[in-house]
């Protein structure tokens, strides 16, 4: 894969930072105010005691009154953990979707680095999440390791939910970004639920090409699936089918969007004819994902 990010692009990215809806909880502190309860003097809340918690943080006064153990929680400035997942299935290798996915991943990673967050980029292959960059902190480390992403290969299936639920995603420590075309029968909604259950901010970027949104195929055609050669669609493609296709695209995108909204996750459709700059500076900024 060619160099996906150039210097001028990095300069543009400097101007933005990743917006975070919730306060962040980082392990090393950072520029984000996290809802992760820490050890600063500002009291925030109570929660049930769990085995392994620091017993010094148990509020014994409450225990004395209720005989139940609660931990006292304090707000603290924490470092954010940004995890970016790239769907590396075969379908993503068409029509420049892979390139767009990588560019978006790098750009978003960079923005996180700029916020002194820890950044990880993963490839989803089959049912496994493969780390490409992991827990990178600081611009230097980022620039030294980002070149690995150019070796990223696309192919095979990707089971997003199964892969993510098997991986370590952290708890309440930042944002998870899934970059995929989401054109699959496989259940990926569970992954969003799973991440949200881990108190993570979730951003789903659906990358589609213009050829997928408005295909130019006409006439009698057998359309084979890139991920499964035995799977094909056969018909005389005309106006009526194209109208139905258009509705299908609208249905698929709105279904994800609605699901994300219901789970307080962010969703954005990205097309490969858009520039990364346009996606970041306009689309995501307008949506408030980037501030």
């Amino acid at each position: 894969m060619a160099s996906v990010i150039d210097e001028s692009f990095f300069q543009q990215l400097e101007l933005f930072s990743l917006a975070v809806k919730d306060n962040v909880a980082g392990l090393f502190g950072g520029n984000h105010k996290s809802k992760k309860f820490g050890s600063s003097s500002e009291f925030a809340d109570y929660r049930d005691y769990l085995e392994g918690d620091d017993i010094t943080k148990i509020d014994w006064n409450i225990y004395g009154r209720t005989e139940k153990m609660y931990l006292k929680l304090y707000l603290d400035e924490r470092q954010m953990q940004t995890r970016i997942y790239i769907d590396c299935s075969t379908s993503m290798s068409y029509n420049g979707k892979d390139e767009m996915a990588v560019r978006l991943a790098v750009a978003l990673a960079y923005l996180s680095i700029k916020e002194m967050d820890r950044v990880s980029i993963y490839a989803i292959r089959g049912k496994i999440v493969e780390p490409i960059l992991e827990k990178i902190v600081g611009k230097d480390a980022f620039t030294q390791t980002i070149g690995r992403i150019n070796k990223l290969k696309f192919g095979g299936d990707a089971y997003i939910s199964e892969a993510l639920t098997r991986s370590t995603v952290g708890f309440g420590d930042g944002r998870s970004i899934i970059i995929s075309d989401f054109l699959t029968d496989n259940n990926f909604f569970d992954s969003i639920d799973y991440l949200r259950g881990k108190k993570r901010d979730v951003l789903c970027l659906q990358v589609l090409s213009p050829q997928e949104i408005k295909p130019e195929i006409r006439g009698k055609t057998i359309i084979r699936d890139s991920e499964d050669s035995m799977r094909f669609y056969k018909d005389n493609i005309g106006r009526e089918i194209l109208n139905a296709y258009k509705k299908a695209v609208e249905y698929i995108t709105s279904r994800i969007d609605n699901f994300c909204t219901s789970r307080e996750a962010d969703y954005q459709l990205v097309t490969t004819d858009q520039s990364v700059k346009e996606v970041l500076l306009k689309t995501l900024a307008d949506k408030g994902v980037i501030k």
Partner: protein
Amino acid sequence: MSFLFPFALFGLLAIPALIIIYILRNKYKEETAPSTYIWEMAAKLLKRKNPLSRFEHLLALIVQCLAIAVFSVALAHPVFTLEGQADDIVFILDASSSMGMVHEGQTRYEKGIELIQEKVDNAVNGCTFTLILAEKEPRLVCQKVDDVSTFTMYLENLKAPTKNETSLVDSVALAQNLFNEGKANLCYLATDQDCSGEILSNIEWLDCSDNEENYSILGLDYKVEGTGLKFFITLNSYASDKDLEVKFYLNNQELGSKTCQCVKGVTQTFECKGFTTQGYAVQSVKAVINATDGLMDDNSFTIYPNTQQINTKALIVSSAPTYLEAIFKAMNVEYTVVPPTKYKLVGGYDIYVYDSFKPTALPEIGASMFFGLKNSVEGAGFLASAEVIPDESTTLAWTNNEDSSLYRTLTRGIGMNRDILLKQYVNYSLVNNFTTILTANKKPAVFVGRTDVQTREVVFNFDLHNSNLPLLYDFVPLMRNLVDYCKPRTLLDFDYEVGDKATLNIADEITKITIHRPDMKPDEAEPIAFEKGQEQYQYETRTVGEHLITVTYQDGSTKEINFFVHMNKPETVAQPAAQANFALAITENTVKGDGLLDNILPIIIAAAAFFAADWILYTHEQY
């Protein structure tokens, strides 16, 4: 069913070609998409309208094949036969003068054409059309024309009514012949005559009348009794009973008027008394209906008595002039008789009659008339040969040269019902161009022509004493005609019907003749073109009314002669007899023909539109 252009059926070959194109185009092409997920989702969303939709992609092909088939067949122009649905129609169009009446800018004749055209336009395809124009003689304009546009052309090229007397009876008889021969089975009669009663049988009436008043003077005569004058006028009021006031004129001076009670459609002759000539000679008599009607042409009638006086002087050179004297005297010809021994060529005579006498020279002015000349005369234009004395009398034969107007003029009024016999005659050989009236043993016996000096001459190859001719009734009119030839009167008849030809005799002294028609301005006149030596001119009358001939002579003097052209005798005169004959008998040959249905233009248009619409839909669907 048959096809006018069967080659167009080759267009059907486009169908297999189209099918091949479809087959070639119908192959599935393969594409690879990142995911078929959206396509499968689209398939779930696609509303299949009906089970036939699986054949939807074939529908365009089926429709296009059908369109090509219809288009090809339509171009081949199929003709469907509708058995017994077509008529062989014969139209009879009245071309009488009354059909020239104008009502609201349209003549009855034009109305008749319009009505016929209407019938033709509404006729079933496959009908044939025959048109009989009822003129003076019925004229078969066209027969069994099966093309409407061609028949329309015939109709459009019909000339206006000829103002002749029509012959509807003869026209119907002609239609009957067509019925008998199986060439017609339906007859329409377009006329302004009232056929509303039951006078028609197997004929349908196309009413061209407009029920406008129409009167007509059909005839006029007069009688002078002392100074008293009475008129006999024949009238008809075609549209209604009418009291018609008629004014009478003598020499263009009004004498007064009389009222005649006319019964609708009945031709009546009225005697109108109480007028006086006041001592004037009758030069012209005129009657005018004092009323306005649709056709004014026949509301006046003028007659000119044949009072043309001509002074003819003849010199008879004969030793036995008995017959000649008698006939010349009867004809009021002033004559002088000299015996051959005392003959000396002198001038001053119009006719020089040489009876069995050979003059030494021919007169340079005046006509010559020879009887039984046995020797040739220099410059006479004929040569005498042997004298013939047959054992039995030779019968003269009329040449019956009816094509010659001069012959017709010279034989005018001659009965030709008695044989003219000769006991002795002379054979002549003709050198100049003569018009022979009678022949003896196929040799010219009586002939007229010109001498070498272009004077007129009349030649009998026999002496009147050797013939029974002077004893026959025909002798008088024959001699009258010959004398008229020698010194011609310009006009012999003064009463014509429109379309008649007036014969103008052109005397040698005449240098110019003009005719002023009633439709001309006073200072206009129609010159008659004739060559020197031309003896007659046939002038075809075409305008109703008083005509004036002005003749100019070599000496500069002029002479005016009037004649009147009246409308033809109207058809109503013969109507009572005609009514009985306005019927057509249906015979076994009178059958309907087969109709044709070949109007396939809408089919062609529909097929073309269908094909275009289908193709547009198809391309829109595909691209």
